């Protein structure tokens, strides 16, 4: 029996049968023991176990990760988190119909300090019905409850089984409206969004970035949710974490350090007169770091953290507002570049050697006859004879009309593209627009539907920045800044560093050159002279942008537009002119002349940059 090699077939069969029998016996015995044990638990100890199950006081709770912060380049916290209290109901918390009725009765009688009822029976009935399908999930009754409301519920907590106060984290904006267009906002993830494969790691109730930096850097901000098991009392209120149970610590999201300089941002915000629409951009043309970006009318980001019903009201008011406060005009607003574009026309002519600083045309007498058309200069009294520097200084239209006929639309278009016009610059917040920059070749294709044909006179409009030209304030600022710096075209951006919750720098953004952005040194020196004289010469159009001891250059513009009697005021400043550190672009809709309206704003922004201690910037 010890060895099956000498055994007969019959012996082996018998031995196998014995072993199968032993195996089955072991199965029967062990299975029977288990069944007896089950019977003991489920029959003899049933009542006891049922009672224990009903009294079970342990719950699984998701711990939401803290969202990362947004800081300015000096460490000023621009966007942070605050606790937000949700009064919620759990269906399974009501042990009986009587309990439910008495709780609902109490809830309906709760009033805030002004004597207003906090809840109505519709909401209660609705939440209760929804709870029927999600028995063990909280249904929100009051979203983002005010502290006084939370206090009321905390006080009466023991009388309200099934009702709980949940704490969530919401965004908080210490500087109120400032920078709202840059930051964007967060809101609760919708069911449609949850179904997208890229949102696989979100759960219902998570908040997700919408618009602005919140959207662009959502992956950095969000972190990872945690999990814990808590013991609750008979009322369903938390008593503490259960030891020995899985505990997953949430991982806070990363913070981002932006290129923003809050002193400059604040100066720009405050410089724009109340009630005007427009935008201000300040950036470093040598590396693309954006110091400040303002869009008006302002947007209150706090409204997106409001209670849902309030949110709908607030949302409707901003969405239907004809002034479009939701639009970030600095990147999505399209304006004719107006006279600021003359630097491109001049650069195109100079770089192709079509004109030089000695080129003179017929004197400006307040306009130019071209065919059957009389093209006016903005100054009806005329400028007389000017060279290109003088024409930039005094923004003489007649000079550029005549020059453009020699230069041609293609050269002007190419020069504009070289400095980022007509295409997106790739700023790291969404909804940037590309603008419009077309020459004779693309004009007819563009306006095919309207049946417009390119006429020779069209170039007169282009030369002075009107006609088939549209730019965003960001493009305009980058264009002038890059032309002045001569160091190449850099992608404008907000992200400077990504910082882990522990304060460790995870990622540093290097300047990204997206174009050559170059003209000959000679051309540049002439343009710089022109920009200098606009601000500093006695008859320059931008004298109101002078900053003490700083060599400021700039260009004014006053864009005619079909929507208003007053022109859009433009001013783009660059300083210090010999080695630009900052370019500031200002546009104000229907505000009047660029020199009078926009230049003083640019001046205030420049002062905030060069004399940070004198301005009313934030103190750290």
């Amino acid at each position, binding site marked *: 029996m010890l060895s099956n090699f000498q055994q007969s077939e019959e012996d*082996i069969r018998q031995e196998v049968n014995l072993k*199968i029998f032993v195996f089955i016996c072991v199965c029967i015995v062990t299975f029977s023991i*288990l069944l007896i044990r089950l019977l003991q638990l*489920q029959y003899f100890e*049933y009542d006891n176990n049922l009672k*224990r199950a009903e009294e079970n006081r342990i719950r699984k709770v998701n711990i939401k990760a803290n969202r990362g912060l947004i800081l300015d380049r000096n460490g000023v916290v621009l966007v942070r988190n605050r606790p937000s209290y949700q009064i919620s109901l759990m269906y*399974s918390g009501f042990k009986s119909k009587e309990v439910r009725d008495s709780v609902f009765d109490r809830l309906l009688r709760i009033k805030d300090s002004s004597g207003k009822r906090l809840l109505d029976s519709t909401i209660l009935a609705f939440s209760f019905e929804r709870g029927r399908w999600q028995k063990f999930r909280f249904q929100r009754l009051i979203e983002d409850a005010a502290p006084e409301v939370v206090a009321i519920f905390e006080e009466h907590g023991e009388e309200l089984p099934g009702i709980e106060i949940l704490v969530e984290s919401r965004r908080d904006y210490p500087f109120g409206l400032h920078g709202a267009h840059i930051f964007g906002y967060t809101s609760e993830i919708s069911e449609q969004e949850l179904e997208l494969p890229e949102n696989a790691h979100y759960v219902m*109730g998570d908040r997700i970035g919408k618009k602005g930096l919140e959207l662009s850097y959502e992956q950095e901000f969000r972190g990872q949710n945690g999990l814990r098991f808590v013991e609750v009392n008979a009322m369903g209120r938390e008593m503490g974490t259960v030891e020995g*149970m899985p505990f997953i610590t949430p991982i806070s999201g990363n913070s981002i350090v932006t290129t923003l300089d809050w002193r400059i941002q604040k100066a720009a915000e405050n410089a724009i007169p109340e009630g005007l629409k427009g935008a201000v951009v300040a950036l470093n043309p040598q590396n693309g770091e954006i110091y400040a970006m303002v869009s008006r009318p302002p947007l209150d980001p706090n409204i997106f953290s409001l209670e849902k019903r309030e949110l709908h009201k607030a949302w409707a008011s901003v969405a239907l507002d004809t002034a479009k406060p939701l639009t970030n005009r600095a990147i999505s607003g399209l304006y004719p570049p107006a006279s600021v574009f003359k630097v491109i026309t001049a650069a195109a002519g100079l770089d192709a050697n079509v004109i030089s600083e000695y080129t003179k045309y017929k004197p400006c007498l307040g306009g130019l006859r071209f065919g059957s058309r009389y093209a006016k200069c903005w100054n009806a009294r005329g400028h007389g004879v000017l060279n290109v520097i003088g024409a930039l200084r005094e923004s003489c239209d007649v000079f550029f009309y005549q020059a453009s006929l020699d230069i041609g639309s293609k050269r002007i278009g190419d020069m504009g593209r070289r400095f980022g016009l007509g295409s997106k610059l790739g700023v790291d917040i969404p909804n940037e627009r590309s603008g419009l920059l077309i020459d004779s070749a693309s004009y007819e294709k563009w306006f095919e539907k309207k049946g417009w044909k390119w006429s020779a006179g069209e170039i007169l409009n282009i030369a002075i920045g009107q006609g088939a030209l549209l730019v965003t304030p960001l493009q305009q600022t980058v264009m002038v800044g890059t032309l002045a710096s001569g160091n190449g075209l850099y992608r404008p951006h907000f992200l400077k560093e990504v910082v882990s919750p522990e304060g460790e720098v995870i990622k540093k953004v290097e300047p990204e050159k997206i174009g050559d952005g170059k003209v000959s040194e000679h051309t540049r020196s002439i343009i710089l002279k022109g920009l200098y004289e606009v601000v500093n010469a006695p008859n320059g159009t931008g004298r109101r942008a002078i900053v003490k001891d700083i060599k400021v250059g700039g260009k004014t513009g006053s864009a005619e537009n079909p929507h208003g009697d007053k022109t859009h005021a433009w001013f783009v400043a660059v300083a210090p002119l010999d080695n630009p550190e900052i370019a500031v672009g200002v546009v104000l809709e229907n505000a009047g002349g660029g020199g009078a309206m926009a230049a003083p704003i640019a001046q205030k922004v420049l002062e905030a940059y060069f004399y940070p201690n004198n301005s009313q910037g934030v103190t750290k």
Partner: protein
Amino acid sequence: MKKIDWFFMGSLLALIGIGIMLVYSATNNSELIWYHTEWFKQIIHFAAGFIIAAIIVFLPSKSWKNIAWIAYAISIIALFWVGSSGHISKGAGRWLDIAGFRFQPSEFAKIAYLLVSSLWLSRNRVSLVEPRTLLIPSLLFIVPFILVLKQPNLSTALVFTVITLVHFYWAGFRLVDMFLFVSPVASVIFSTISGLYWNLLIICVFFVSVRFKFPLWLIILVMTVDIGSGYVSQIAWNTMEDHQRNRILTFVDPMRDPKGQGYQVIQSQVAIGSGGLFGKGFGEGSQTNLAFLPEEHTDFIFSVLGEQFGFAGALVVLVLFFVLLLRGISICKLYSDSFINLMVSGICAMFFFHIIVNVAMTVGFMPVTGLPLPFLSYGGSFVLTCMILVGLLINLRLKGKDI
């Protein structure tokens, strides 16, 4: 005789269906959308499992002998690899990432070891009175055993042990041989529980070995090892630090620590007990819905069954398991070939061990070891292992004559 065993297939499909239903009801509380949920992934696991099982069914039975050594070598290498670079999940280095797939080499090592052990023992006999015959099979066992134990994964290491014991029994050990063979382990356990039991055990070992006329040297050897291991373990036990002793005691009896180790077992018993005779109904049950049970869809799936379908549901599932084991082990009756016998007995032992240990754990009879329940517990690697084993059983039943 060689047609499909409908009892076997019926039980299998019923168990898989019940399993997916239970995983669904244990996890549908989650806030994920359906194609990220565990129940949907479990369906995918089984779909993949069926394909692999079908492929295995149609392969020639002879091929198992051919790949045995290669599979064994690969799985040993893989075990070494996770030992050095394994992905740490819940503190245990058990996972291996290959081309984006995470799997547990220890799962596949079980199958590889089963093949190699069957192959060796079908060609070489083992006998307790001839220790050299035990050398190679013990070596084959001890290498994966230690590697898995080091992960640390005690429960899977015990699966290797069970395969080995059943194989030794099937390859020639008598029950009395088995008794002497495992007596040192019993001695270690008994010595720490009570001196009386230990004394009884030693006396028992002595009388049994004399009664069955074992050679004198073997009796002396067994007695020496038994008494020696008993004393050594008692000394070790007494010199242990309190916290170490507590850890062992808590492992054996989780109720000593009701907030920690014991918590899951208590909750599991409450869940099962509150189900009563006929359960609270599908999808009902506060225990599982409120997630009092961590790992409820993996290790504690039987508690979900007990709570929602009561004693009746548990009885049905245990009967289905019993039918599966019965029909499985009966394959041995069809062929006298020892390789088939060893394969089949090993597979059935593996299933049996998983079922018993898992269910005993959920009713509070055994330590929480993390051994999943075949066909019911959630988990990709384990579903694949089970389906491969099922494929092997069907294959051997249909094509055993080829060997």
